[in-house]
């Protein structure tokens, strides 16, 4: 299993990490550290880094690598012990014989390996196996586990050669159980003994949120340090994508920038999946627009969607919980997180206690906090189909439409103080933005007037202490949208009653004209209250025909 690493030359940008890992056994021997917690988002390449490291150690022959993945492990204690133990024995023999196939051949029972072990003179290993089998036949749950977990330590001591133990997705070990899920707590701490051994550096991975409670178990803190695996830099991400495409015999159209790839934030798993999606969709030549199409497929129906769906299924037991989870996640996305003290049962539709439990699980898993656009789009797709009852195609098209539109957008933001003539700065800015869009010069004058009116209304009437106005200009080929926000007193369009000029003159009222102008100039004017801010949304449709 550890041998299915990708070719070393295709493994990008992890030289510093690898070279640090290579020094671990020295660090550990000198009590200077030597245990690493490899942290990084899902798909960032933690497993791949371990596999690459494994292969290097295997052929260098100085330190023995042992890799175990908890991801697919059966967490019933006795199964786990058997699996872990035989896994170690196989990998050890394969290391000594320099025969990778021995490590991968899970079908072969230990008994069949005995002759090989004897011929290698590893008599201590035979003892070890016999001891383990003794515990099994006596049905001794605890000692089976201990014997399995301490096998690498035993080997290191007997042979005087360090064993590097790689525990992938180690957080799952927190769920080891005896006969039914949740019946035994803290079995994970059995690893403490092994981790403390000077000849056994450990490299573990897992979600930080899930491992935090594990690390408060003092026996495991020890000398563990955190190594963070970040995204691939933009240029390498593009290079990786192009390399995948080449392997799949897909070419990029001349001049394609692959700008859209940025959305994958240098995540190698997503990058690979997107390339595969292009292949599945039978693309021969990739244009920027194809990327969006393939991406929309990926987050609704592709491997990325499949991956996340399987992660999600771990957290829910029934359809009601699944719906609740989606609602909570969508709520978190829309509100930029989960607010303290909010009655989330109203969102989830489950009871208070059940909601708490679900939320707890989602929080520890890191899913709820993840600033991962791909994940968010996946959640959005699922929400559209499972909660809103739409069909999968529509969901996919929605995602696609969103990005096609964004691609054509340009976006400016500015903040002005509420001081005299500051509105002229806005007028100047919007003039240039309009010119960039080729808007008619005459119309620009009106636009300036409308913006000046909105700004002075905020300056004059908001009573804001913050004394700032926040503006956003979003331009699309068919539309200009301007969002103006400020804190202070709310106001609504209804409150701006029209007063005829005659009346104004009679009453000496000379104000309240501003919004009348704004309404005449813009195609739509909306006023919203968002938290403590008033938000005015102005839109103007652009007629490209004339």
């Amino acid at each position, binding site marked *: 299993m550890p041998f299915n690493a990708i070719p070393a030359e295709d493994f990008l940008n992890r030289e510093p990490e690898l070279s640090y890992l290579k020094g671990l056994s020295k660090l550990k021997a000198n009590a200077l550290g030597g245990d690493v917690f490899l942290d990084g988002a899902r798909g960032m390449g933690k497993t791949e880094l371990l596999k690459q490291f494994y292969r290097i150690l295997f052929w260098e022959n100085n330190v023995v690598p042992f890799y175990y993945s908890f991801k697919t492990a059966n967490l019933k204690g006795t199964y786990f012990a058997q699996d872990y133990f035989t896994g170690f024995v196989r990998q050890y023999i394969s290391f000594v014989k320099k025969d990778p196939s021995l490590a991968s051949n899970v079908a072969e029972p230990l008994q069949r390996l005995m002759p090989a072990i004897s011929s290698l003179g590893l008599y201590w290993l035979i003892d070890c196996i016999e001891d383990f089998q003794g515990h099994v036949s006596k049905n001794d749950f605890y000692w089976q586990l201990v014997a399995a977990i301490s096998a690498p330590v035993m080997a290191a001591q007997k042979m005087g050669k360090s064993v590097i133990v790689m525990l992938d997705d180690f957080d799952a070990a927190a769920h080891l159980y005896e006969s039914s899920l949740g019946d035994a707590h803290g079995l994970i701490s059995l690893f403490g003994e092994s981790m403390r051994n000077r000849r056994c550096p450990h490299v573990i991975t897992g979600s930080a949120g899930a491992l935090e409670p594990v690390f408060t178990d003092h026996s495991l803190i020890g000398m563990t340090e955190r190594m963070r695996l970040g995204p691939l830099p933009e240029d390498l991400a593009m290079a990786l994508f192009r390399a995948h495409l080449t392997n799949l015999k897909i070419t990029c159209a001349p001049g394609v920038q692959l700008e859209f790839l940025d959305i994958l934030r240098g995540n190698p798993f997503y990058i690979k999946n997107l390339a595969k999606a292009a292949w599945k969709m039978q693309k021969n030549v990739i244009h920027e627009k194809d990327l969006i199409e393939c991406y929309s497929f990926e987050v609704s129906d592709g491997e990325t969607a499949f991956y996340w769906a399987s992660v999600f299924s771990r957290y829910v037991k029934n359809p009601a919980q699944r719906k609740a989870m989606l609602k909570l996640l969508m709520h978190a996305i829309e509100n930029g997180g989960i607010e303290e003290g909010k009655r989330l049962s109203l969102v989830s539709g489950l009871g208070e206690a059940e909601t708490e439990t679900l939320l707890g699980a989602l929080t520890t898993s890191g899913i709820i906090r993840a600033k991962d656009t791909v994940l968010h789009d996946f959640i959005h797709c699922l929400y559209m189909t499972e909660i809103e009852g739409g069909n999968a195609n529509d969901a996919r098209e929605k995602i696609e439409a969103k990005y096609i539109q964004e691609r054509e957008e340009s976006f400016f933001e500015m903040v002005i103080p509420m001081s005299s003539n500051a509105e*002229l700065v806005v*007028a*100047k800015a919007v003039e240039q933005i309009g010119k960039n869009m080729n808007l008619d010069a005459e119309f620009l*004058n009106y636009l300036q007037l409308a913006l000046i*009116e909105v700004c002075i209304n905020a300056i*004059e009437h908001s009573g804001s202490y913050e004394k700032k106005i926040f503006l956003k200009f979003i331009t699309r080929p068919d539309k200009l949208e301007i969002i103006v926000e400020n804190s202070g007193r709310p106001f609504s369009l209804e409150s701006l009653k029209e007063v005829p000029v005659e009346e104004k003159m009679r009453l000496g009222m000379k104000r309240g004209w501003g919004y009348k*102008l704004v309404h005449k100039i813009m195609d739509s004017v909306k006023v919203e209250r968002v938290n403590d801010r008033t938000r005015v949304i102005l839109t103007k449709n652009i007629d490209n025909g004339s």
Partner: protein
Amino acid sequence: MKSVQFSVASRREGDAAIIYPKGYLNNLSGENLVIECGIYIGKGITKIVVNFSETDLINSIGISMLLQIIEDLRNIKGTICCTNMSKLLRDTFEMLGLMQHMLVFPVESDALTYLKTGKL
């Protein structure tokens, strides 16, 4: 947008006063405009021409100051003429329903001719 500084220049021609608001017509400059007109009205002038050729940006508060002048002139049976208005200015006055309270001429000389002869 040429300048943001606002100033008001003015001159007399016969029994009329001509006012030249320049730059950004907002609350401050609108008030200056009112004051300037007030000075002429104080001297017994009842015909006022506002030449907008050098007004670039405007806002509703600035414009509303014109109401004051219209009202003051109405009280003394005077006349207000606006000239050299940009399309934006004309449209804006129209939108706000100000047009029917003033006489509008394309250029200053038209207004002066009208004020002298009473003919359009």
